[in-house]
């Protein structure tokens, strides 16, 4: 019975806290480039987790999730650069803007079935792209919005040990805390009765409707929550990359975040962050050798679809179950 004892021990370790603390040490133990990569991973993780509320939890295939990411990035960027609004206001405003757009577009999207739903989300994201690309006065058009100022992080100097951190490191720590809080909120939402209802709807929409659930209202609520957090991720990304450009909203980016989610494993809450970590790391490793990263990404995607549909976390979980069954059998 050692297998079971090990499992309970493993589940008692506060893994999320350990990962968070390990991630927080990056500015002190890593190079500037490590902080850069870590920022990207953390932001992508939030984006992918927000998508997975639709994809994995609710079973809605959105091909336009980047629209909400983009709305958040533009709202925060425009407020901070053009109107000099402080970050404490611009950041929630980005979430609010994305939420409003998700409410309006989602209202129409959830009325459609499967492929039509995917097409309408794609259409809305391309509308955002077309506006971003052409509305020169507000979004900078094809030039984008470069040189968005960093938020004021001088107050961090007061914290012991933070005095000699670069602004990029400080912004990374701020990002890490905000993303951790957002992911915690999404975790609570997924585990709440509301989240369970979403999964019921995914598994059997007809039965969910029979027991009196307003399926569309639940789907719309999930859509708005997912859009809000995508908007927050977008706001952080715009600040991290010091600019917001129309390319961020092009439809191919939606495919990228879906790949990230599937790579980690969309059946698991922690799958998408693992996918974000794996994809950013792989990208960094591979682009050092070859410019044909999309080709390899395509091959990875094929392997996932045909051989490992559960993704990385799915594969690990299946491996552990197999190992445990072996141990139990040996003990018996």
């Amino acid at each position: 019975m050692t297998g079971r004892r090990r499992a309970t021990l493993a589940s008692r370790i506060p893994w999320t806290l350990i990962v968070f603390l390990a991630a927080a040490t990056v500015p002190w133990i890593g190079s500037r480039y490590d902080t850069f990569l870590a920022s990207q991973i953390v932001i992508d993780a939030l984006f992918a987790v927000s998508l997975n509320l639709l994809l994995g939890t609710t079973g809605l295939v959105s091909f336009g999730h980047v629209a909400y990411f983009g709305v958040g990035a533009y709202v925060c960027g425009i407020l901070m650069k053009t109107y000099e609004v402080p970050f404490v206001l611009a950041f929630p405003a980005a979430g609010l803007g994305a939420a409003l757009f998700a409410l309006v577009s989602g209202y129409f999207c959830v009325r459609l079935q499967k492929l039509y739903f995917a097409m309408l989300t794609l259409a809305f994201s391309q509308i955002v792209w077309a506006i971003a690309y052409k509305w020169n006065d507000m979004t900078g058009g094809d030039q984008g919005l470069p040189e968005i100022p960093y938020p004021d992080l001088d107050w961090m100097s007061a914290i012991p040990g933070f005095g000699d951190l670069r602004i990029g490191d400080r912004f990374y720590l701020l990002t890490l805390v905000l993303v951790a809080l957002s992911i915690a909120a999404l975790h609570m939402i997924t585990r709440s009765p509301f989240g369970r209802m979403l999964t019921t709807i995914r598994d059997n929409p007809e039965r969910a409707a029979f027991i009196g659930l307003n399926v569309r209202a639940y789907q719309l609520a999930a859509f708005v929550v997912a859009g809000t957090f995508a908007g927050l991720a977008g706001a952080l990304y715009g600040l991290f990359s010091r600019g917001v450009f129309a390319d961020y909203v092009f439809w191919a980016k939606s495919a990228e975040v879906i790949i990230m989610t599937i790579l980690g494993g969309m059946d698991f809450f922690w799958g998408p962050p693992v996918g974000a970590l794996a994809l950013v790391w792989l990208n960094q490793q591979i682009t050092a050798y070859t410019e044909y990263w999309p080709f390899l990404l395509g091959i990875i995607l094929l392997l996932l679809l045909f051989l490992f549909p559960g993704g990385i976390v799915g594969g690990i979980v299946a491996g552990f179950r197999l190992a445990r069954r072996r141990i139990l059998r040996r003990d018996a």
Partner: protein
Amino acid sequence: MAPSFLFNQFMGGLTTAMFLFLIASGLSLVFGVMRVINFAHGSFYMIGAYLAWQVVQWLHPAAGAFWPAALFAALGVALLGGLVERLFFRHLYGREELYQLLFTYALVLILGDAAKFLWGTGQLSVSTPPVLAGSVEIFGTAQPLYNLFIMAVGPAIAFAGWLVLNHTGVGRMVRAASFDREMLGALGANVGAIYTGMFVFSSFLAGLSGALVTPIQSIVPGMDVLIIVQGFIVVVIGGMGSFWGTFWGSVIYGQVLSFGILIFPGFSLFSVFALMAVILIIRPWGLFGRPI
């Protein structure tokens, strides 16, 4: 605005429309029969363009190199489509839509880079075949002969497709497969072969349109992802799976784009995507499709 200017604008829109129709008809067919949104259709189109360029290079001295090149490109892409369907795609029919979408997207990534690897990242171009090089004057405007040729090819293919689908045994099978795949299989028809045939024919159309576009557009990496979204718009407007729907969808798209520039300069991109969203909201099955 002078009538000749408006006529020119109209003809420009119509040329765009007929090109898009060639591309979108294959997309619509695969959607209608197989219920698959094929992102790789744009990549097949791009490969068709590159293959046509390649064959023109090989046959360089011959003046009539364009026509065999176009045929070869279309057949080559059809073969590619057949291989993709037989080797990979058929294993995904029972799976969720997400996996099918992602498979076609994986092809976009792989074919896009393969084209860069084989043909480089520069712009390539093919000259207009000599027979169609000139232009004719209509209502005081000069219309290139090649554009008029495309305007004739589009409706011809639409008509042929409609004839085959509605008045032949093969067409009946295809329509039956789009209604109820299992029932057709139970009646003894080889549904797998019909699907392969559909995919091959759709790829053929993609390759052909890629080859035919080369005299008026340069061949560049990225033409695949740009065209596929336009194809989606057309298919959505007309109705996924409807041949004439796709035809009229292309005409509407071309005219909205062409006259949208006059009415809201700079916002024609927005207007076509907005049109796509509005159609999906009020009639998801498109203007000419049937509800599923």
